[in-house]
Structures are given as C-alpha cells and as structure tokens.
C-alpha cells in the first residue's frame, strides 16, 4: 500500500503567528497540469486590518533598533532562505512552467536581494541624508527616518523574488510590512513566513497575506495607519484606484515597473532610490554659536 502523504496546511503569517484567515475561506492552487496542488488562505479585509495593527505595534521597536542589528536580522533571513533553496524552488514551480534551473535562479536572486538590503540598513542614511551648509551660525542636517507601516502588493511573478525585492526596500529602512503576495502563486508567500519566524524578525515586522489582491486594493489605499504603498506590475485601473484612495491620508505611493530581467538586477531593485520613497526626511536646526 502506498503511503498517504501529509500535505502542508498553508497559513498566513500575521503578528509572528501562522494563522488561518478569519474569513474561513481558502483558495485552490492548481499546478501547471491543472491538478489541485494546494489550498491557501483567501485572506480578508479583516485579516489585512489585523496585520496592519500588528505591523503598527511592531514599528517603534523595529525602527528603534540599530541599523547594525537590523542588518544582521535581514542577513539571517538570507541565511535561512539559502538553506531552503530546494523547497522554495519547488514552490515556485508549482504554478509556473519554468525550468528547475530558472526557479533556483529566482531563489538565489531573492537571497542576494536580502543580502543587499541587509547592507543598506546602516548606510542609506548617509546616501539619502546630509549636512547642509546654511548661511548662518547653525548646525543643520537632514536625516532620513522610516514612515511606519508600508503595504506591499507583490507582482504575480516572479512570485518569490518580486515579494522579497519589494518588501526589502521599506523593511531595511525600519518600516514594518504588510505584504499581499502573488495571486498567481501564493505558495512562496505562505512559506516565506517560516523564514521570517526562524530568522529573528520580531513578531509583526513582516506580515504576509495571501488571497485575491483586487479585493483589498481600496482597503489598503484608505487604511489610515498605512503610511506607504509599494507595488509593481499593477494595471492602470488599479493604479488609479490605489492613488485615488490614498489621497485622503496623503499616503506615499510608489509604483515601479521592473521588466523580467530587471528583477534579477540587484543594482536596480535594491537601489537606495527604491528605499527613498519610504523614508521621511527630517531637517534639524540648532544654533552653533551662543
């Protein structure tokens, strides 16, 4: 008799815990042959709100720790992902007809992307900030600081790399993240929570939701505790929806368009100019003569 395999229950990752959606809904994930490969959570607006609350509570401590420490935690994420290359490569291939080599390349690029952002945690301040030579006896310097909760809307593909590249930029600066994973393949999003949990990412700093993105757009845009939104590969209709909804709380919204090759170009995705939309610049004056 053949052994019955134990299929994993894919959950979402909110507030440092693996949770099922409160809505009690699930999504059938079909593989490239049209067979049922898995069931993932069909996250709701209420799940999104809980995630924002967790992210909001985690913000003070995550933005308050040193860049050095944040860098080590992000580097630890890279270490953990490196150790599970095979599993992630297999997850990527579930819904996408790509070669095992290509899937591995995506995982490797995701690891490298995390390494790059790990390095930015204590350096972006020097690239984006500066001291200013005002015409008077004052010390004057401009320092960047994180904004708060940033919502990430991952592209359909690359399902892992797209998610990691988009959440890495606001995360390294000290923002906390609520990410809504790829609609096309939610499995990498669902298992990325396991990387977060085993890599010293404090509870609530990264929250991962799976489901139907389009159900959440208006809600993400209008949620007043969300300071910024980072996305790529959205249709014009959805960009209008999100930008219009963001006006009421004057959110910082950044839509990037990365080509298939761009995602693999670390200079592009991990540029400090993708961190910049998710920091506020504070300029401090003090007299330098008494």
């Amino acid at each position, binding site marked *: 008799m053949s052994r019955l395999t134990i299929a994993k229950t894919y959950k979402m990752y909110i507030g440092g815990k693996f949770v099922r959606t409160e809505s009690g809904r699930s999504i059938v994930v079909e593989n490239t042959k049209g067979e049922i490969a898995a069931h993932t959570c069909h996250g709701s607006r209420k799940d999104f709100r809980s995630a924002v609350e967790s992210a909001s509570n985690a913000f003070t401590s995550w933005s308050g720790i040193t860049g050095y420490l944040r860098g080590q935690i992000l580097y630890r994420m890279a270490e953990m992902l490196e150790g599970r290359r095979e599993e992630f490569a297999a997850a990527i291939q579930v819904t996408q007809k790509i070669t095992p080599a290509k899937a591995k390349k995506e995982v490797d690029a995701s690891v490298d992307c995390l390494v790059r952002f790990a390095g930015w945690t204590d350096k972006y301040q020097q690239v984006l900030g*500066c001291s200013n030579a005002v*015409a*008077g006896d004052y010390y*004057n310097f401009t320092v960047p600081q994180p*904004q708060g909760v940033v919502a990430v809307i991952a592209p359909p593909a690359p399902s892992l790399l797209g998610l990691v590249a988009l959440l890495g930029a606001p995360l390294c600066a000290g923002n906390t993240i609520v990410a809504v994973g790829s609609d096309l393949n939610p499995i990498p999003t669902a298992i990325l929570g396991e990387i977060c949990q085993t890599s010293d990412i404090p509870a609530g700093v990264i929250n991962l939701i799976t489901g139907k993105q389009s159900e959440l757009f208006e809600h993400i845009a209008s949620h007043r505790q969300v300071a910024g939104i980072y996305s790529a590969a959205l249709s014009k209709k959805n960009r209008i929806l999100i930008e219009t909804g963001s006006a009421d709380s004057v959110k*910082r919204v950044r839509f990037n368009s990365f080509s298939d090759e761009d995602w693999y170009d670390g200079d592009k995705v991990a*540029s*400090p100019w993708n961190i910049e939309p998710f920091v*506020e610049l504070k300029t401090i004056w003090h007299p330098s003569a008494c």
Partner: protein
Amino acid sequence: MATTNKNQNSDAWEYSSALDTTKVTIESKSKLFIGGKFVSPKSRSWFATINPATETKLSDVACAGKADVEAAVKAAKTALPKWSRLSGTERAKYLYRVARRIQERAREFAILETMDGGKPIKESRDVDIPLAAQHFFYYAGWADKLAYAFPGSTPAPVGVCAQIIPWNFPLLMAAWKLAPALACGNTCILKPAETTSLTALRLAEVFQEVGLPDGVVNIITGEGDTGRLLAQHNTVNKVAFTGSTEVGKLLMRGTAGTGKKLTLELGGKSANILFADAAMDQAVEGIVAGIYFNQGHVCCAGSRLFVEEPILEEVIYKLKQRLGSLRVGDPLDKNTDLGAINSKSQLKVVEGYIRSGVKEGAQLHQLTTKRLPSKGFWCNPCFFTDVQPSHTIAREEIFGPVLSVMTFRTPEEAISRANNSPYGLAAGVWTDKGAKIFEVAKKLDAGIVWCNTYNKFDASSPFGGFKESGFGREGGMQGLRAYVRLGGV
C-alpha cells in the same frame, strides 16, 4: 473672557507715516507671461489685485482661461528640448544672473511684495527677497552637478512642470519652485496665487532681462480654476503645489493613474515645546517670532505651544509682555511687526477661529492696537490659554496670528501631544540639555525641527512635511529630487 494688553508703544509714541521713497511703478494691466512675452489673456478676463493694507486697487491682473493654459503649456513644451539639452553650466549661468538681478532690484521687489501681500517691509526686505535670490544662486550651482546628488543613477529632467504657489511668500515660493526645476533642465508654468501675482510677474521681467530662452518659464495668473486646468493638462509631466491640505488631496485624486510626478507642501499645526530648563527670554522671542511672523500666514507657524507645567505662569507673563510691544499697522513702515491680513476672506477665517476659541472655553489674550488704519484687513495678534487638545483652535490650521498655549509634564507627554495631529510639517524644541533636545527632535513627526530657534530658512536646507503636510522636499540637495527622473534604477 478676553483680557487685553495695551500696545505700550503706541501709547507712548506717535509714528509719522512711512516714507515712501522708492516709487514702484505698477502697470494698470498685468498680463500673462507666455513664451517670453507679456500677452493679454485670450479669456479677456481680468480681476483686480488690491493692497490689503489700504484696499486700493494696484492693478488688473489677467485671469488665464483654458486657451491661455494651453498656450503656456505649449510654450513650455516647445522650449523643453533645447533647454534640457543645454549644458548644466550654461543653465547655471542663467540662474546666477537671475539671482544677481533679484539682488539688484531687491528694494523694488520688497516694496511691491509688501504692497501686494500686506507683509511688513522688514520681512520682505530681510527674509523673502534675499532668500529668493539665494535659492536661484544655490540651485544654479547644482545644474552641472546633478549626478553627484543621485549616486548610482543618471538623473534626467522630468519635462514640463506645473507649479502652483500660495500667497504667503509669493516671490520666495516662486523661487523655491522655479530654481530647482530649471537647474534640472525642466521648463515651467508657474501659477501665482490670486491675491499676490505682482512680484512673480516682475520676476518675469528679470527673466527677460537675463535673456532666459523664451518659454522656459511661463507665468499665468488666475484663480483656482486656472490652477486646476493647468494641473490636469495632459502635457504636464510634473505638478508641484504649495497650499492647503484640502487642495493637495484634490490634486492627488486628479493626478491618480496619470503617471504625473507630484510633490505637495501642505498645511501644518506645528508644535513648539518649551522645557523648564530652556533659556527663557530667548525661547519667548522664538515663540513670538514662530507664530506672529508674517501675521501667522506661515504653513510652519508654531501655532501650538506646549509649556512644561512648572513654568506656565512665567511664560504667560512674558508672552503678555512681549505681545504688548508688538506693532500692528502700515506694512511699509519698517518698524511694523505685523502687517495686514492678506485678504478679507482670510481675515474672516482668522476671526472665526478666534471666536471659536472663546466659545469653546479658552481664554483669549489679545493685543489692542489703537488707531489701526481705517481701511485694510487687520487682526491683532493673540494667544489663548486654558486650551484643551479637543478645541478647534488646537487642531485646525488657522493661518493667522493666533497661538494656543497648552502644558505638559514629561517629555513623553510633550512628544505624544505634539505628534497627535494629522499634520507633520515643523516643530520647535527649547531646552538647554543636549541629549534631551536630540531625543525629542528624533521622536517628533515633523519634516523640520528647529532646536532653540524657529522659522529659520535657507536655500540649502530641505523643507517639507510628514503625514498630511505633504510629500517631497524643497530646498537643499533633496529639493532636486522632485525635478529629476532617475535612469538606471
């Protein structure tokens, strides 16, 4: 429950009227500046601009309609290829010349600014005009150094920029918008505020004098509708706006999905935090300057004062004393501290807020100036004590000479109360303790934190807010960001 302070100086002295030694010529018709020429509006519509201190008409100003907006955008678009391809050093040389001409015509600009807007001549003379010149001089130098401002990328101009500015610092705001945009190789259409168009149009004369290529800057005057038509124009690549949060939100909705770059410098309700260990006289001077500068028509005005509880009485005493020595009156008199309120409608708004403060139970302390001019729009500066955080005057932007005084017991309370606002433009911290000042500065949600000083501005210092005070910075290296597209990233 109003208590009043007598204007001690006006009891003691009678000042003779200000000497109007420099006559500034103002054309009876102020035309649009499009494609390097002053042209009558195709709309055939004009509106009067008045001196808010006398209510006399200064000029009829063109009200740009749809066809005029079209012409201005077309001129900017036509001028773009050549201007953006010009070498940075050549662009710089034009901007340096602009700075020099503003300095050379400084007196004329200052008088005109004060006549059209109502601000005291000592402010337009010592702050607005010198800073406007400095902005052109500062950004001129960046024109050929842009790659150093954006490491790892290749900055390119955004294109045609629509720039909409408010009435509180008319020439200075024009400089804030135009100087970085031009340095980065963009062409512009500037829309001054309805009540204060004259100095921007005079700046157009400067552009002609320095030989700035036609169409690189176009200035179209008009009302809110003109600004809306401009921001919505399909050819416009970038919208920069300074003004109310309400209009900023409309612009966000209006540009949604268009791919237009947007920067917003919006309202504020900035907090000044005064600790018991601060240098008291210096702090009171800073607080007074922080709220009454430019009649309080300042987006970063320190309109909420949080005083550490044990020194409240002393601070109120000193504020009353200082309030009593302020002079309200003829803006052209160089002894004047507070000039005219910019418009009748703004005066009504400010008076409404003062009434609401009294009605909601706060205690009013207001200067009573005898012999205010019989014409013009005047508001005596005031402050409120017994203010609750829920009071309207403690929450909403007043844009007038009205200060709300509240107290706190611990630094944490001061920070949390200061941050308890949808705005996040500026803040002030007054204390003698170094570590405390930086800890508080770090925790305040504000784009500018003035420590043991207030309302200092400089071309090299970025300005702009957190939260609903907008996004993007003006001034400094970071002020270039709004006017470049970064290639290679």
